[in-house]
């Protein structure tokens, strides 16, 4: 164990630590992070990596918005603009959302199930470092040689890399290779991480934690990781084919040799749509933990929540082609995928009602995590409604590839997933650092970000309905898009200010925040029964569980849950 203490135990005799290994010195600190196989440190590294790339990809978003603020803008060159939209999308999905999701699950799952670490701790470190370095590998493309004339080497074929634009003939230089290889590497990291987490949940639950007593967070993590294990490989396969095509002359997506450009889209979206659920289920998971604790009621309809999650997992396999209504599917295909898309709204709606029913009649405490959850409920509802609209194929024929779609999926990813992540940060930060996040700064973050979010993305619905296509570099005045774009850009500035508040809060509170104690929220799951931050071994003695709220049982021996379950 390289835990950086001054004395390390080796066999029976105690030997002094090597130079630089002392806790507190910068080198010791870095060594500690590099050598670690502790799920908590790796979880924090995952989240930290995600937040780091969040800042970078957020700066790209600001550049995009600056370019589109006024008609005929010239903030970036057209080539750079293509790189920016591609990198913004790719980085936000694969190196912001994915690492944060893995970090959340990595940190919390072993604590919640009363385990001491993951099933395969070293594999866990391997997964993290693949994710970490693949991100830097992608960013290296900016300086790694020219792409098209006037552009950097950053990939510029859109975040789903439309074939055959990605072939050697149309994308010279190595930019697409950076894209496909870095996504492939991060995919390997995600799959190994997914297997690790699933094995941990299935094989390392503490005594008494049967499947129907697992916290909902763990259930949703299990379904999420199942989706990772099954739906990441199609993307890897597609990247392998793309690389074979670009470097060995294979013909998979080359229409001139009989290949199909549509097949690429199928392969990408077979991964791409379950990916949305891979990202949103962990957000659901945090909501499902936070809402009951801050409503002082157990979750409403636990079995129904589990069933809805599993159902979402299954249906998500059959909806991918709703991204492709406009490429020319046959009428059976269109009908099938439209129906499946509408059907998946049912279990998702069930969850919304269950959260509302949990809050109904509860003693609601408006602490920061809860505030973000309530905003999530509002925003995710609208995101879901526009999703149902786009699932109706004729509507999609009108608005596909417009700013309406942009607005819809940013509502899902920012208004939904990111708010879930914010809730996660405010709720579990005290556990990880032993100190509370500052409430005043947190409220500034909430209001700035929420106002900014709505200013940015609400008008994009209107711009889209007015016909503004996505991915355009600039536009002429007089089409009715000027006002919406200007509001959108102003909103982006508000979001940036909010994000700065969050980052400052995270840094400041780690040293100066109020001491949290073991259980600041009076919560019910196992992670709050150990110290904050938890020791490396998590629990001195493995806890034993008799109900869904083990900590409630411990605090209220006169009225334990297990009597009623």
């Amino acid at each position, binding site marked *: 164990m390289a835990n950086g203490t001054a004395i390390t135990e080796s066999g029976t005799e105690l030997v002094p630590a090597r130079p630089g290994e002392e806790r507190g010195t910068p080198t010791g600190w870095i060594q500690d992070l590099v050598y670690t196989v502790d799920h908590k440190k790796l979880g924090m590294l995952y989240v930290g990596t995600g937040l780091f790339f969040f800042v970078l990809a957020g700066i790209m978003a600001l550049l995009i918005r600056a370019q589109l603020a006024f008609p005929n803008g010239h903030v970036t060159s057209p080539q750079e603009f293509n790189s920016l939209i591609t990198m913004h999308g790719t980085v936000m999905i694969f190196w912001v959302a994915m690492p944060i999701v893995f970090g959340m699950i990595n940190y919390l799952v072993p604590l919640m199930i009363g385990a001491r670490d993951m*099933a395969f701790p070293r594999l866990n470190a391997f997964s993290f470092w693949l994710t970490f370095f693949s991100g830097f590998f992608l960013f290296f493309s900016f300086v790694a040689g020219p792409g098209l004339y006037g552009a950097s080497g950053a990939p510029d074929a859109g975040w789903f890399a439309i074939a055959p634009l990605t072939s050697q003939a149309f994308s010279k230089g190595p930019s697409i290779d950076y894209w496909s290889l870095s996504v492939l590497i991060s995919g390997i990291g995600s799959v190994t991480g997914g297997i690790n987490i699933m094995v941990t949940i299935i094989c390392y639950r503490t005594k008494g934690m049967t499947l129907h007593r697992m916290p909902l967070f763990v259930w949703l993590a299990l379904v999420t990781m199942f989706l990772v294990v099954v739906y990441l490989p199609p993307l890897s396969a597609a990247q392998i084919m793309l690389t074979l095509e670009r470097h060995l002359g294979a013909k998979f997506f080359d229409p001139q040799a009989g290949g199909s450009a549509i097949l690429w889209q199928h392969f990408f979206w077979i991964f791409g749509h379950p990916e949305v659920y891979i990202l949103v289920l962990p957000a659901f998971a945090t909501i499902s933990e936070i809402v009951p604790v801050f409503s002082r009621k157990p979750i409403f309809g636990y079995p129904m929540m589990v069933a809805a999650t599993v159902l979402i997992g299954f249906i998500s396999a059959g909806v991918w082609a709703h991204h492709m209504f406009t490429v020319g599917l046959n009428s059976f295909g269109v009908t099938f995928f439209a129906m499946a898309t509408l059907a998946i709204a049912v279990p998702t709606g069930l969850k919304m009602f269950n959260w509302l029913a949990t809050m109904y009649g509860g003693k609601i405490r408006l602490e920061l995590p809860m505030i973000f959850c309530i905003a999530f409920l509002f925003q995710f509802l609208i995101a879901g409604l526009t999703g149902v609209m786009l699932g109706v194929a004729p509507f999609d024929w009108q608005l596909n590839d417009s700013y309406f779609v942009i607005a819809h999926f940013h509502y899902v990813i920012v208004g939904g997933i990111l708010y879930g992540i914010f809730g996660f940060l405010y709720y579990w930060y005290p556990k990880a650092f032993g100190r509370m996040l500052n409430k005043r700064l947190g409220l500034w973050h909430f209001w700035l970000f929420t106002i900014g979010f709505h200013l940015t993305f609400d008008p994009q619905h209107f711009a889209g309905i007015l016909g503004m296509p996505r991915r355009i570099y600039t536009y002429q005045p007089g089409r009715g898009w000027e006002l919406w774009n200007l509001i959108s850009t102003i909103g982006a500035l508000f979001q940036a200010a909010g994000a700065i508040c969050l980052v400052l809060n995270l840094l400041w509170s780690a040293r100066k925040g109020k001491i949290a104690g073991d259980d600041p929220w009076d919560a019910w799951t196992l992670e709050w029964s150990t110290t904050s931050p938890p020791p490396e071994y998590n629990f001195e003695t493995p806890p034993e569980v008799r109900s869904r709220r083990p900590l409630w049982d411990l605090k209220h021996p006169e009225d334990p849950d297990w009597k009623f379950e």
Partner: protein
Amino acid sequence: MSSQSLTSTETEWKLPSPRVVGMILVILTETALFTIFVVAYLFYIGKSVSGPYPHEVLELPILGTVLLLSSSVTIVVAERNLHKGINSLFNLWWLITALLGVGFLIYTGVEWHKLIYEDHLTISTNLFGSTFYSLVGLHASHVVVGLILILLILILNVSGRIKHYHHEHIIMISWYWHFVDAVWIVVFTVVYVIGAKS
């Protein structure tokens, strides 16, 4: 948290082995990977715009199939001997398994040599070449990984480092090997039966 000794009415707390669950998940994720290559092959049957076409160049790989599928039997025999504790017989059958796998790879190598140098079919010739070499090559690469694992076990066992608590590791490797064989049955059916006439 204090561990109160509860008058537990529950039966003994037993969870599945992490190795078994892990291997099942590896096989699941590999299946998903192969599925995409199989789908690509099926999708592109008969879509090549220039030759050589499968019916001109492909022959049923009877020998290779026999070699690989019989290795699934020999690995089971090896496992039986492992459970009985007959180390020498385990080593023998385990070695035969590895040799059968090597034989399959040699057969594939001969087949590819003929396809490349006599029939002039490469991965960049046409869609058939692209899908054929990627699917069969992906399978062959899994055979190589399986062989490395098998030889590793053999070396460790001959040098006496395999203990009784390693038996589950060995069984998991044999599961992986069975999976590789099962994939070959799919590849055989798709490439050499369904796709052979186009």
